[in-house]
């Protein structure tokens, strides 16, 4: 069970990472990062099962709340960016580029 969860967590992390790189929409990039977070939480649970240590579950709980903070801030930034620029296409948001 623990090994299976570890594999699932790894795959979820890489899928989310790939999605954040591939998709050019700010919203879908946020969703992909949440998939990566799910992979991280699954990995913590997997190691807690493999080691029989509840500390891994406690850390997973902290990661869940921090992911919520990230999602709230990301959604706010998306709304503000859309109000100012009328787009969430990352290819058009290039103010920081030279």
């Amino acid at each position: 069970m623990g090994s299976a969860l570890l594999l699932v967590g790894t795959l979820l992390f890489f899928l989310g990472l790939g999605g954040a790189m591939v998709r050019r929409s700010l919203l879908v990039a946020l969703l992909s990062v949440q998939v990566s977070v799910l992979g991280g939480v699954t990995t913590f649970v997997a190691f807690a099962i493999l080691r029989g240590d509840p500390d891994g579950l406690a850390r997973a709980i902290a990661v869940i709340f921090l992911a919520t903070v990230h999602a709230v801030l990301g959604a706010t930034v998306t709304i503000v960016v859309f109000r100012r620029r009328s787009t969430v296409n990352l290819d058009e948001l290039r103010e920081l580029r030279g």
Partner: protein
Amino acid sequence: MFIGTLVVIALLSAAGVVALEAPVRSALALLLCVLAVGGLAWAGDAPEVAGLVLWVLGAGVGLLLLTTILLLNLTPDEVGGRRLSVRRSLSLVVLAWTGAGATAIVLESAPVRAAQAAIPRGTAARAALEDHGIVLALAFLSLVVAVVGALLVARRRA
């Protein structure tokens, strides 16, 4: 069988988040992935984590992002496409599978402490509150600050 089904649902829905064109469908796929991961955590004798994944990440984050997508009501031009094709990005999945297989091989060969039969119920919550209380308190505080800040920023007119 049940765990295998949840694994397949989790992986397919995560792939759907990346591959689906419409952001609404990606958000719905994320909700499905959260359900599957919550089920896997429950099957792994971690009901506290399962509950938090379902309620916080699913009902909180998932619905928040879905509502944001619905409110913005983006046109296809505003959404943005893909930089790479889905077929090429599947190479990332192959790499991930290879990395996961290597991880599994390393873990199987490394010595692991003798695990207890199961993590007793309630010990995760006790460990979180007693051993990681400061971390959780800071996480809660940052969540409150983030929500208040989001409300203040969103209220301003462009």
